[in-house]
């Protein structure tokens, strides 16, 4: 056991901190730290700044811009990024479709998409969830029927986050409706969102914002070369994608930064003493979460998700919400008009998406406890 990072990791951490606090445009970091509205342009500029320094897609294979980092270094990278108020690389590109293409795609498809994906020249959207499926992802009904050199796609996706900015969308589609199990017969398809027959409809959320969308496919013709890997093997790639995203799942850096901001705010408002005990409780729990994330990062071998990932997801989402709740209460009567309240409402999503906390409990009970 050792408290300090190794000299190497310590140097790595300082390098990251130095980069994030000096080389990413200040306007972007200020907007993040002050809970402002992030624009598409800011997300692109942020990722391109990272990518220029080779820091956008560390989890990818080295030949495609990745870094041969340890899990701990990837944790430090993510943590320092969040603490500095840097917008993390777009998850759809960096953590989702990128690794799938890099792992399962043909050389041709890799060359065609990976550089543009790392640099956010292509903005990817995710086409997984469907209206009637919810947590039951494999129950999807969007079909892709082969017609010569094309697939013809029909159906609907939903909860497509930031789909309004999307250039391309990676989709799970049903290519074999007669497969004996619903997990079979699914393929992983890349679709240009400008193709005829594809329409995006905004979904307004309860915070009044427009962050998710429905995407409709009406006889959308997709060239067969846009298939990733093999036909009907899409579920395997989807599981790989979903299991891949474990760095940063707890959003602990963001919550820590927010709690620090909340302290300043409480002091400014002259109510620090009243909230001190609540702040202590949150700091104590965030510290436990941060240390657990470190344990998971340090203890992860290879590409297997650590069984404690569900712990990080549950507690991480609860603390994101609890810190947000603190901001709302700090506002006092002004909460009724405050942006903090909209953020609080928006943050209800973090215990729902990416496998709801009920699903995570089910995973812990089943996989870890054997219940």
């Amino acid at each position, binding site marked *: 056991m050792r408290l300090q990072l190794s000299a190497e990791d310590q140097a790595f951490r300082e390098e990251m901190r130095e980069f994030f606090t000096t080389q990413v445009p200040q306007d972007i970091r200020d907007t993040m730290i002050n809970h402002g509205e992030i624009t598409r342009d800011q997300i692109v500029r942020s990722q391109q700044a990272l990518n220029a320094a080779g820091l956008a897609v560390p989890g990818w294979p080295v030949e495609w811009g990745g870094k041969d980092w340890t899990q701990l270094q990837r944790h430090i990278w993510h943590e320092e990024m969040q603490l500095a108020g840097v917008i993390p690389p777009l998850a759809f590109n960096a953590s989702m479709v990128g690794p799938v293409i890099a792992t399962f795609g043909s050389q041709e498809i890799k060359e065609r998409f990976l550089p543009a994906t790392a640099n956010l020249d292509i903005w990817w959207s995710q086409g997984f*969830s469907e209206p*009637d*499926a*919810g*947590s*039951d992802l494999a*129950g999807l009904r969007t079909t892709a029927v082969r017609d010569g050199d094309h697939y013809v796609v029909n159906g609907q996706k*939903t*909860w497509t986050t930031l789909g309004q900015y999307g250039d391309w969308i990676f989709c799970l589609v049903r290519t074999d409706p007669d497969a004996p199990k619903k997990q079979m017969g699914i393929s992983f398809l890349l679709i240009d969102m400008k193709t005829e027959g594809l329409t995006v409809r905004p*979904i*307004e*959320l*309860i*915070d*009044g914002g427009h962050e998710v969308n429905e995407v409709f496919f009406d006889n959308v013709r997709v060239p067969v070369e846009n298939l990733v890997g093999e036909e009907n093997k899409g579920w395997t790639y989807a599981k790989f994608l979903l299991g891949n995203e474990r760095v940063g799942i707890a959003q602990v850096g963001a919550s820590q930064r927010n709690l620090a901001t909340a302290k300043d705010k409480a002091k400014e*408002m002259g*109510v620090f003493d*009243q909230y001190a005990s609540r702040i202590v409780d949150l700091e104590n729990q965030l510290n436990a979460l941060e240390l657990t994330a470190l344990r998971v990062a340090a203890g992860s071998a290879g590409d297997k998700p650590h069984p404690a990932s569900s712990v990080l997801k549950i507690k991480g989402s609860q603390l994101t919400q609890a810190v947000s709740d603190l901001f*709302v*209460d700090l*506002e*006092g*009567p*002004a*909460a*009724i*008009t*405050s942006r903090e*309240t*909209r953020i*609080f*409402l928006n943050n*209800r*999503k973090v*215990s*729902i*998406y990416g496998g*709801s*906390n*009920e699903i995570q*409990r089910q995973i812990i009970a089943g996989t870890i406890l054997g219940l």
Partner: protein
Amino acid sequence: MDFTIDSEQKALVKAVRGLITNVYDSSETRREATATDPGFTAWEKLAEMGVLSLPFEASPVEVSLAAEELGKVIAPDPFVEAIVLAGGLIDALGTDEQKKQYVDAVAGGEILPILAWMEPGRRWSADASSVTFADGVLNGVKAPVVQAERADLLLVTAALPEGGTGVFLVEGATAVETTITNDGGRAATVTFGDTPAVQLGEGGDQTAAIESALDRARIAYAHEALGAMETALTTTVGYLKTRKQFGVTLNTFQALNHRAADMYVTLELARSTIMWATIVAADEDTTPEQLATAASHAALQTSVAGKHIGLDAIQLHGGIGMTAEYSVGHYASRLIAIEHLIGDADFHRARLAATVGDHDVFDPIG
């Protein structure tokens, strides 16, 4: 001790319910109403039915029953704000002449009065500090002021030169900057710069009357919240029964059912306290201190229960609960807003803590 309502009161409930569920017949209708200024559409009908005259002509029981029905559909009309709070203050403090001038017009829906009492950076104090009155004019800033732009008459709390706080009447144009509130309503920052105003009533320090008016409003808000919580739970239960996942309806999952059961426990306990607070307010022997205690008990239950039920309603729905097209998210938004209009849980705990050591067993009917 009697929690039952009589047949006239039942008829009132039925009438208000009929009216309000007709105006806001769906979540979509309510959304359309809040999308266009001033953000509510039932006002005239409520006036016609006599709902807006309840605080002046009936007891707090009738007021609360009406508020609860409005809460069930989270009607965006400012019944509690304008009628119970501002109207109630005119009724409580106004001179005969002022009452004559305003009460019928308020009850008839011709004049919408609003109390501007909250000040930036302060927390639900009944006394004013940053807005002052001197030499016939008001100066300072009030925020947030619900529906200030739509209001025909502002009642403004202001610090008096001789100490204490008075309520002042301002008609017509003031510097108002309106934003949409997080529950789809309207609230404004109102700036007074040598704005001429006359005091409501006989003058002098009116802090105690303001506090009691706030407490009556808190109880009415609590009933509005109660209605909202009830619908949020009913909607959630309905969803669990019908929504299928993994090939079965969600009520197949015991963990979700038990969460709903806990919401029901919370709801019924909150209901008891909130109903009781109304009965306390309606009792003629109730002192201002007893009213304050009852209002804080109701507000504390409302804050804690509203958050529990509102947020779990979203969680048990999953993604659909996050969307503006579906209803439950708006219920959660309104419940969070009410908490911060009536004073949050910390505020009411501190208020009750000031007297909790003075009595042995707390007796709600003593």
